[in-house]
């Protein structure tokens, strides 16, 4: 019976293909890091030798501010004595338009997070189950099974699930490379578009995260403008996931696509924004996702679809109050930016001391770390995975290998820094510095600056063999290394 189920025989009770295929992406080796962390999580006093979680892009730096606000504003909760008189109305409220005050507050907050340079229309705010739900919903609105969306790589690992799994939409990556600091160029998009069309693919649009996950970089205004013109010319959609909009801590202002949509050369009907409070405010548990589209039909459709992932009215009510508190919001955004900047500075400085460089970035909750020089074999994904396993198992840090983001160049790792306290970060840096210094007498050649090969394959992850490590490799590390065992997937897919 069981095997019949899987093989999809004549058995009428079999499950759907979606339920049984791997397209949710959770069986990838990527989750080895999570499992190791789950089994042995670091705690400063209780488990100081445990695995430090640096694979989770959470923003824990300003929760104290929010906690304080909640304490001082009991009316914002429908459960407190001060707020309970609203309980029944709110508990009863399931209108998929969402609470008006909530939409207004979100629109207001989104404007503030973009420095007040743009305003958002509350009537275009559509709720969803986190940005996860928002991205899936926008795909359902814009594309049919078999259609293609271009997505610059490296990209957020879970896009494979969010954009493709139940929608049947295909992702065609637009590979970016270190040769120009992984900057997304119009030329690269044009080329990818052309190739896709030539292979008879129906390209419906371009989707990217800005500020970028995993890079932490922001797109400059000119490129953004040119991309918007490009999609207008080709009559394809542009979805910009701006989930990290308020995590900018340095450098140039973040330019939202909302700032360029009013250009005369732009067809606004093609422009859509995905947003969430999970990163900017550090509230992933509250599941606040937003679809914001300049296309009326899409707003209407997405709103009907939001029935499948509305924001809890209890949460809407609280946030409506919190986000309309201007003095709170202003202070929060400023403090958050400051703390992220400091944390980023401390971390990158610490890495530099260990001879590790990161891609220059001015936003996000992570750095894009360059460990190409530590690869046993240059330009090898096998080596990247080997190195990654060493980092997890020996250095005891869960970081995310570039291959899990469809990066075409081996050796890059995304490392999160905002999901822990200062002491833990300190420990992580010590461990890294310790690991690097132990191996400063390594014999592997450093990757030269010219050694960047753009790999224009389809970025399939190579299944690496669990062969014994070579002797030369063994010399690199004083500890004996055992080959990692095969683990069955059990870990939850935490938002990365």
């Amino acid at each position, binding site marked *: 019976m069981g095997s019949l189920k899987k093989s999809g025989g004549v058995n009428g009770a079999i*499950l*759907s293909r979606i339920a049984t295929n791997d397209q*949710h992406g959770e069986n990838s080796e990527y989750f080895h890091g999570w499992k190791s962390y789950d089994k042995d999580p670091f705690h400063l006093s209780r488990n100081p030798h445990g695995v430090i979680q640096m694979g989770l892009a959470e923003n824990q730096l300003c929760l104290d501010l929010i906690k304080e606000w*909640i304490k001082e504003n009991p009316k914002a909760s429908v459960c407190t004595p001060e707020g309970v008189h609203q309980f029944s109305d709110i508990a009863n409220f399931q209108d998929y338009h969402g609470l008006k005050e909530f939409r207004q507050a979100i629109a207001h907050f989104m404007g503030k997070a973009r420095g007040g340079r743009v305003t958002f229309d509350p009537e275009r705010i559509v709720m969803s189950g986190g940005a996860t739900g928002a991205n899936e919903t926008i795909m359902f609105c814009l594309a*049919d099974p078999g259609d293609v969306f271009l997505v610059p790589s490296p990209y957020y690992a879970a896009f494979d699930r969010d954009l493709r799994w139940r929608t049947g939409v295909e992702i065609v990556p637009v590979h970016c490379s270190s040769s120009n600091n992984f900057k997304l160029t119009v030329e690269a998009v044009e080329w990818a578009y052309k190739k896709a069309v030539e292979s008879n693919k129906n390209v419906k649009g371009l989707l990217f995260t800005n500020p970028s996950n995993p890079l932490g970089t922001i797109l400059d205004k000119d490129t953004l403008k040119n991309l918007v013109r490009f999609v207008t010319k080709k009559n394809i959609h542009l979805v910009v996931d701006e989930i990290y909009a308020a995590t900018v801590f340095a450098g140039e202002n973040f330019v939202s696509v909302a700032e360029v949509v009013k250009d005369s050369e732009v067809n606004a009907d093609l422009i859509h924004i995905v947003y969430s409070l999970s990163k900017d405010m550090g509230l992933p548990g509250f599941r606040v996702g937003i679809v914001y589209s300049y296309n009326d039909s899409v707003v209407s459709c997405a709103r009907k679809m939001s029935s499948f992932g509305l924001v809890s009215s209890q949460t809407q009510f609280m946030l409506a109050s919190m986000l309309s508190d201007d003095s709170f919001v202003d202070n929060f955004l400023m403090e958050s930016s400051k703390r992220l900047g400091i944390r980023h500075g401390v971390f990158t400085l610490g890495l530099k001391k260990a001879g590790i460089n990161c891609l220059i970035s001015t936003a996000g909750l992570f750095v894009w770390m360059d460990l190409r020089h530590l690869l046993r074999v240059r330009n090898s994904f096998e080596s990247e995975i080997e190195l990654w396993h060493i980092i997890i198992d020996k250095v005891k840090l869960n970081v995310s290998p570039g291959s899990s983001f469809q990066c075409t160049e081996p050796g890059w790792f995304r490392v999160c820094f905002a999901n822990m306290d200062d002491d833990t970060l300190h420990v992580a840096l010590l461990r890294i510095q310790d690991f690097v210094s132990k191996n400063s007498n390594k014999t592997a050649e450093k990757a030269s600056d010219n050694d960047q090969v753009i790999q224009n394959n389809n970025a399939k992850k190579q299944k690496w063999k669990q062969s014994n490590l070579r002797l030369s490799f063994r010399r690199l590390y004083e500890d004996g290394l055992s080959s990692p065992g095969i683990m069955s997937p059990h870990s939850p897919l935490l938002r990365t």
Partner: protein
Amino acid sequence: MKQLSTKVTSNAHGQDSSYFLGWEEYEKNPYDEIKNPNGIIQMGLAENQLCFDLIETWLAKNPDAAGLKKDGQSIFKELALFQDYHGLPEFKKALAEFMEEIRGNRVTFDPSKIVLAAGSTSANETLMFCLAEPGDAFLLPTPYYPGFDRDLKWRTGAEIVPIHCSSSNGFQITESALQQAYQQAQKLDLKVKGVLVTNPSNPLGTMLTRRELNLLVDFITSKNIHLISDEIYSGTVFGFEQFVSVMDVLKDKKLENSEVSKRVHVVYSLSKDLGLPGFRVGAIYSNDEMVVSAATKMSSFGLVSSQTQYLLSALLSDKKFTGTYLNENQKRLKIRQKQLVSGLEAAGVTCLKSNAGLFCWVDMRHLLDTNTFEAELELWKKIVYEVKLNISPGSSCHCTEPGWFRVCFANMSEETLDLAMKRLKEYVESTDSRRLISKSSHERIKSLRKRTVSNWVFRVSWTDRVPDER
């Protein structure tokens, strides 16, 4: 090139149906006792507003849960960060126990087999994604909840094939109706993946009998297909009969750990029993590991807010509260339903005898000009625009017989319900007198008597029935 997806332009979301249009009219002119006493009274919304006071009292006594605290310590940060799609363990445990309590603790629910979803809207869609594909069909007894057209079909591409039920036997599911539906699906070249029932039924307000449940379990066993039992109204049973869940039947037939049990899935939600539709709490319960696994991953698209999970885990773990609540809820629903039924009777209108749900299935066939759906829609419009009551026409629920309407009773005050019944009575009386004038008096008196007599006959024969069959 087609710019948007086919989903945008199709109306498989079903929102152009009269069910939703009535709501729109209500929105434009909503009744308010003081501000708009001539507005439309909302009777098309199956909400349970009768027991909020009980929850509010509980909140006042439990400041920790209300204040996101545990043992006096703030757990705000933990909740703010908690997005594990396995859900808060305390919440799933409390939910499982609540579901057991509703079923008289006759069956057990294993928390690890619960998958949380954003309302049963999301739960039902997710189950469809797991069990069916475009070109597959689920059989549903009519009349059914209008939202199923959207929830089960829209984005999944699955189809619904109706199992026709009729008033001749109180809309119960029969074997021949099941077989006919199955064959119809095959004629349409659709692969039947399962049957979905709502029990207690929306819009009927009745519970599936044991006979029907046994029939369903036997049917899915023989056809090797799935059975989804949406038990969202399980806590709204107010008659003296117990609610019999499909889980009871599996237990009684000793099928608990069988292959068949893996194909039986229960959907639940706190939107009706607890009256908390805004909090978006839905659940899927399945004995099939693969379904649980796939559905859990899919729940990422609609997780329950952690602050809501925490609040409700505290609420539902308080057994004193849940016991009192379920009892009181049933009592109040019973009284309110009686009020509606008597009000309808005073207007010469009967309804299907029911003992659950937040609505009655009302028989207005005698008020139709002709036995057609056009006439039903005409009548409906009059009721919405002239009588100013938003009720749901049977056609929006895919009923095969014109003249039936779903009328909700638990989403308004007693006074408002009273007023609604007065309005209806006035309308019926004025219609009758209008008809008396327009047709020959002899004919009219004859048919009026006949109608009145048959109503009484219907009611008398109804109450003579064995309690097990509605």
